[in-house]
């Protein structure tokens, strides 16, 4: 009887939609929707800017309140927070933008890049997935470190340089079918070219330059993998008591954690902090919590969300949590915290979910990237900003048409 209704339902659904075709110009409809959304965000940014101008005119406020854009172009900085920002422009160039409006093109033909110590790891889109390159931060000494594959089915994803820049770790994904996707992690010594099979994926992060932390296939443990031998040893599991205690502390009604993922180590010098996420369902999702581990210290966080939670590192132990479901604007919130504990605080944003985020080098400003058109700057809220030694006060400041926000870095002393 049960099998019968299941079969009939399957047949009915298959027959009902077998001839259905999407609108012919679906890609054009998608582009139009994308442009419409950007216009809306731009309008929100313009409103914010208009409010800032009004406030400035009425109160004569100066100090750290940013000036209107026209005045910025003439005298003030283009964006608050100092340093320089790396963008991937619409034309496919990697470009540094300085607060005085100067730009320095790094390289062209790249879809994106991420700073990795003193160098950049950049990637290009090809007909067969991504190819990866290293280069100095001025675009010199470009080296192909991982060519694209020769098949649309197999591609390299999640490539990351080791902390000392001598190795590349990467995940080779084979999409056999929608439901049959395999991941293999590899590392290659960039000096000798020797490759090491580090076993199955799906994901990994570098622990140090000699080992990675890999997610297990059943998502119930993290495994330490030597990049020279490929040997795996258990590192953390969902049954570890300190993790269970931390999860229960912030998710008292969620039961036991069922999955664990590595989110990454804090950037910069020691002491290194490991961020992991736990959830009470297989896969990311169900009642998630972000757990920060520093030596024996365990710091759990679980803002009010029953779905997505992601972490982005700032500077000096500062971090940002973003929560939401898919990226619906309802329930999409962001919080800033520090390793010293204390309450999380909410930065002021333009309201829409953003795509990328970066902290200023001093840890006092957050840049939020909305697609390739808009970057918004907002102050780091208190109490997290006190970690940076100063709290700025200004309204969200938009910057238009610079490209996809990739990174925010100090200006190197040369």
């Amino acid at each position: 009887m049960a099998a019968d209704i299941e079969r009939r339902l399957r047949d009915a659904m298959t027959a009902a939609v077998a001839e259905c075709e999407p609108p012919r110009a679906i890609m054009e409809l998608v582009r139009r929707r994308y442009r419409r959304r950007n216009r809306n965000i731009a309008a929100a940014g313009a409103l914010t800017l208009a409010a800032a101008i009004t406030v400035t005119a009425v109160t004569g406020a100066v100090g750290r309140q940013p000036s209107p854009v026209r005045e910025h172009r003439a005298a003030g900085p283009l964006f608050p927070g100092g340093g320089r920002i790396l963008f991937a422009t619409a034309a496919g160039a990697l470009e540094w933008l300085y607060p005085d409006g100067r730009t320095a093109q790094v390289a062209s033909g790249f879809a994106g890049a991420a700073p990795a110590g003193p160098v950049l790891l950049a990637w290009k889109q090809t007909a067969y997935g991504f190819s990866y390159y290293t280069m100095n931060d001025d675009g010199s000494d470009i080296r192909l470190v991982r060519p694209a594959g020769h098949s649309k089915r197999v591609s390299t994803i999640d490539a990351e340089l080791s902390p000392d820049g001598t190795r590349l770790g990467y995940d080779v994904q084979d999409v056999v079918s929608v439901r049959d996707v395999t991941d293999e992690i590899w590392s290659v010594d960039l000096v000798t070219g020797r490759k090491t099979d580090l076993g199955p994926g799906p994901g990994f992060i570098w622990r140090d330059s000699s080992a990675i932390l890999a997610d297990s296939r059943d998502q119930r443990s993290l495994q330490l993998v030597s990049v020279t031998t490929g040997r795996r040893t258990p590192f953390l599991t969902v049954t570890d008591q300190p993790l269970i205690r931390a999860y229960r502390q912030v998710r008292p009604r969620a039961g036991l954690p069922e999955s664990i993922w590595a989110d990454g180590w804090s950037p910069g010098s020691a002491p290194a902090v490991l961020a992991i996420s736990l959830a009470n369902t297989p896969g990311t999702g169900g009642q998630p919590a972000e757990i920060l581990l520093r030596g024996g210290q365990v710091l759990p966080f679980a803002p009010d969300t029953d779905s997505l939670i992601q972490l982005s590192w700032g500077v000096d132990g500062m971090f940002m949590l973003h929560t939401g479901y898919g990226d619906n604007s309802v329930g999409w919130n962001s919080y800033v915290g520090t390793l010293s504990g204390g309450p999380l605080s909410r930065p002021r944003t333009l309201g829409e979910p953003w795509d990328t985020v970066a902290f200023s080098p001093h840890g006092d400003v957050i840049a939020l990237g909305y697609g390739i058109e808009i970057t918004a700057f907002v102050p780091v809220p208190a109490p997290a900003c006190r970690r940076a030694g100063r709290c700025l006060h200004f309204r969200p400041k938009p910057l238009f048409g610079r490209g996809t926000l990739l990174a925010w870095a100090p200006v190197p002393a040369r």
Partner: protein
Amino acid sequence: MDADAGDPFEEFVRGRSARLFRLAMLLAGQNRAEAGELLEIALERAYRRRATASRDRSPEPYVRQVLVSTSIDRWRSLRRRAGQPPAAGEPGPEVRDATGEIADRDLLLRSLAALPPRQRAVLVLRYWEDLPEAEIASVLRCTVGTVRSQASRGLARLREAAASRVAERPETAAPDQPGTAVTAQAERPETGDRDD
């Protein structure tokens, strides 16, 4: 991007949009306009992320997840606004149906469309997409237990609807009263979807 390379996202859309649209049709209760809107929303969100695509997996699981979550969110928001769920699609033209097979399918589909959206999504992902329970749990951000219970409740309602049709069916086939057996149930507020 290399000069000779096609845009990978456009290739993805070309290759997979028909399948994704069919999924959207089922999630939207065969309302074509609603399905088109769902697909547009989901693809636009994936399009936004294309610049950072090397950090992500294939866009398909993401698009599928947005389709499901948006279908549930839109149903809830429309229901709050209008006091009732969005209407299912119009029935197709009348077809001679000597064995009652088409009427049976039609009733099942109408009953499916009348289910609460999470139950409907579970049944569509399970029996049309053929996803394992763990993956459905991941898409719906719930436990495997919840997936099982939602599937069981959804199937029970479909079975009730099918049984009521058999009971009402006269020897000579009369036009169905589509969906009446389950519509009243579907208008109840959703309960039991959350685990906490």
